């Protein structure tokens, strides 16, 4: 147990280095990550609303804006997910085996989704 404590020591410190500055907050890195998740969520919702408005106002550029919106929002979502997996699920301190265990299904599921999206919509959207 003592070893485990040592191993996880970083998670029990209330001090975090962020952008070159030391921040002290109850909960340490976990609280900082939660703050980041909250901020990113606000950015997501606001930018979605703003872009929706833009799409509504400029129907000509709708396709481009829609693509920008999708890429931006999914990018943020992936960052958020990675934060949770990396810090809250402690992938940071886990072995490489566990990283493979989580990456393999992501790869397989990702490729399958890509495939299903890529084939012409023969049956989709009649």
């Amino acid at each position, binding site marked *: 147990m003592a070893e485990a404590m040592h191993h996880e020591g970083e998670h029990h410190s209330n001090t975090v280095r962020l952008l070159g500055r030391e921040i002290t907050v109850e909960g340490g890195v976990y609280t900082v990550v939660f703050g980041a998740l909250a901020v990113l969520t606000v950015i997501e919702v606001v930018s979605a609303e703003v872009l929706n408005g833009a799409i509504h106002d400029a129907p000509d550029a709708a396709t481009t804006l829609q693509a920008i919106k999708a890429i931006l929002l999914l990018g*943020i979502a992936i960052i958020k997910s990675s934060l949770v997996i990396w810090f*809250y699920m402690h992938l940071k301190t886990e072995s490489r085996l566990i990283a493979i265990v989580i990456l393999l299904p992501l790869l397989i599921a990702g490729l399958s989704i890509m495939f299903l999206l890529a084939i012409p919509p023969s049956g989709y959207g009649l």
Partner: protein
Amino acid sequence: MAELTASHLPAAAHDDHGHMSEEEHNNNMKLGVWLYLASEIVIFSIMIVGYIIFRINEKDIVAQAHEELGVGLVTANTFVLLASSFFMVMGLRAMQGGNRAGMLRWIGLTALGGIVFLGGQYIEYSELAHLGIVLGFDTASEWSTFGMRFYAPTFFHGAHVFVGVLWALEVMRRGAKGRYDNNPIGIEMFGLYWHFVDVVWIMLFTLIYLV
């Protein structure tokens, strides 16, 4: 055979004979949960792909649904789930620091977060049902093809939250008895599950409600 047994006594006296060491046990548990989550990723991907295909092909229906629904309620719900994930990890941290009462408090908040989330989902489903968006196909409704693609992933996720709430309560029950005082692996396993459910929601929230 008697001699054989006798000659093996020193070996049999080893404590690890038939029992795994704590570290071995913890590693097994963790790897097992990660593998389980790996399989969950694939199931959710099927639910999600059904929605994405629909999203691409039926832009108008989805846009209309977004307009009707708004993002207020679901954003609040998202915050609740994100917060519960934070509570969860704080609970584990407390137990790792030997603070059982703190752990119980944090995990309690986690379970509460899950319950509030489910309540929010119930309200949302009621509103949708009021609009005529239901699970089954109905030729009379303009929403007839949206409902199933929406409900399947979100309800499947909600079911996972429900199981998570039950699991949290069980962790609290065991934790209160001091089960995790020496080895918090049980909390960590639940944590992995709960954070995973949170990650799925982060993706669903973006894909279904925002994009």
